[in-house]
């Protein structure tokens, strides 16, 4: 369901400040950002610029200290922790730099995990898992554990896991950070294809400008927690 005039995400004067002893850290400082449904946006910035913090706020993993974040019309700042968990389960899929697969589980079990958490009927799970794994082209590796897969394959598994609950928004935190450039490109191409096929909204954090310019429709620069520029990439 898309409400709020076609915006998947609206961040309005969002701040995330931390108190470290006597010092106030402004990780994200008065950032406003609108993301339309189906858009592929890249958050660029140097280390410590606040891009990952902003992504965590958009995911509902963290709460802003100021402002409002509307995801498909619902304000994340006003949600209970239980509702935020439901938001992460149903609306958002996440991919991380270090893949974050559970090492003792097979590929299949890792991809099934979000379905368990979302209480999807057991009978529907194998089909949903196969569909997601098929999208990333790893059907033949279903029984393998993460340690038996390459970095690129692990990230593809993480992508399948993020997609299995059919989320509206995919949030990717440095998805190519642990991959060589060729594999990184391959992953981003896959993400782009999935966006086109499923009409998903994608917000990707990266510090690789070249990749961002190549795959994202829009690039947002952050520095010292502030939004420095927001432009549509040709």
């Amino acid at each position, binding site marked *: 369901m898309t409400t709020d005039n076609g915006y998947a995400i609206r961040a309005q004067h969002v701040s995330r400040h931390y108190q470290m002893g006597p010092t106030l850290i402004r990780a994200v400082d008065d950032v406003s950002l609108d993301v339309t449904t189906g858009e592929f946006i890249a958050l660029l910035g140097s280390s410590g610029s606040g891009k990952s913090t902003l992504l*965590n706020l958009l*995911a509902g*993993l*963290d709460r802003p200290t100021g402002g409002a974040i509307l995801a498909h019309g619902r304000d994340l700042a006003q949600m209970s*922790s*239980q509702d935020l*968990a*439901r938001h*992460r*389960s*149903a609306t958002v899929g*996440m991919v*991380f730099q270090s893949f*974050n697969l*559970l090492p*003792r*589980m097979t590929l299949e079990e890792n991809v099934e*995990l*979000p379905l*368990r*958490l*979302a*209480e999807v009927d*057991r009978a529907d799970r194998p089909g949903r898992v196969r569909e997601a794994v098929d999208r990333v082209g790893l059907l033949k590796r279903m029984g393998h554990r993460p340690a038996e897969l390459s970095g690129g394959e692990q990230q593809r598994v993480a992508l399948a*896991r993020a997609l299995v*609950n059919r989320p509206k928004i995919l949030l990717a935190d440095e998805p190519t950070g642990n991959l060589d450039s060729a594999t990184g490109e391959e992953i981003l191409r896959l993400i782009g294809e999935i966006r086109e096929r499923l009409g998903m909204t994608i917000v990707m954090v990266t510090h690789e400008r070249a990749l961002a310019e190549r795959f994202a429709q829009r690039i947002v620069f952050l520095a010292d927690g502030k939004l420095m520029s927001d432009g549509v990439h040709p």
Partner: protein
Amino acid sequence: MKSRDLFELAGRNLREAILRNSLTTLGIAVGVASLVAMLSLGVGLQQMINKRMARSGLFNAIFVAQRQNFRGFGGEEGRRNRDAGTTNPNEEPRVLDDAALDVIRKVPNVTEVNPDIRFTSDVRYNGSSRLAFLVGLPPSAASDDAFEGMKGHFFSGPDADEAILQVDFAKELEKDTSSLIGKKLTLRYAERQSLPADKNSNGDPGFSVVRRERELTIVGIIETTPGGGLGGFGRGGMFIPITLAQNLRSVQNTDVRAILRAANGGSTPRTYGNVTVRVKTANEVQAAEDAIKKMGFTTFSLLDATRNLRRVFAVIDLFLGIFGSLALAVASLGIVNTLVMAILERRREIGVLKALGAGDGDVRRLFFTEAGAMGVLGGAFGVFLGWLMGQMINFGTNIYLSRLDPPVPPETICSVPWWLVGGAIGFSVLVSLIAGMYPASRAARLNPVEALRYE
């Protein structure tokens, strides 16, 4: 998260750190085993004593006597009855005769009504004679502890011409008491013979006393008197079957009272001084006792003694349980330690779970389930260990008892009833869940962003 998924994930997590979780579970098992062993000892001893008491026949027995209606007689009971107005001093007290016995037999849950027949007799054996106090024994007395390990056997029938001697009296007849088994002795006693009715006199003509003899075979020698010397069996030197005792129609003390009543215009039926009434279990004693009292008889039972005994055992079980629980309390610290370690190790995993949609409640329930699973497994294994310890105590004790002189029959010192099995496992789960509360709550409160950053 659905319960089945929760159990599957918890099981997977427990299998991951199999050694540490097994050791923690073993700690719980040892705690539960000590609890079960302690309580099984208390339960076993209680059951053993209850069984002994039940076999003595004292705790499901009511001793019934005729009321006295004259001042100065009847003791405390008579005074209480008079004060309570249950005895009318102008009324004849109800007679404890065969008709009264039939009425008592109809009281609910009454299984047996036996008159106390006892009389003094002259016993002739091997050319010499001795006075002996004879007591009639019902067939149910065979299960009395006094007959456990007796020399010889119990009566072959309720009217068999047989006698069982108490060892002190037997020694008077023969030094080697064992040699008496199978030998014959002659009983010389006073028989009560009713006189034919006289048309010219008022009321019952009374009875005459005739000397009789009866030859009996000695079938057994016992060390102690049945029923702990209480009730109808008390202080006997020689025991004969109850029906035989009734058939002998020996003169009883109550016959004197009966003849005095006959002088007042009444009849002289055969009456009994005391009657022993047995009910199914000790629980039915009170109701039956009340019913018999209402009929106009004086009653006495050892019910209060059993109540006090239950209280004593409840206190003993409580203390044994407390000591047994100490080990379980120590084991519960192991659960806390294991789960706190698991949080540290699985910090990043908790972050991933939360990022994928797990709520605080899901994480809390996952850790609770892991604690509960350790409680169930530890509890079940602990019950088995506790039972095994109990069996070893039973085995060792019975070896010791069998080597005593004379050998004592085997006893069940430790007993693990089903309620203890269920209760111990339930208690183990409860303690485990309480121990898991802190780690589960800590895991649930983990900040997912910090957890995901954790290396």
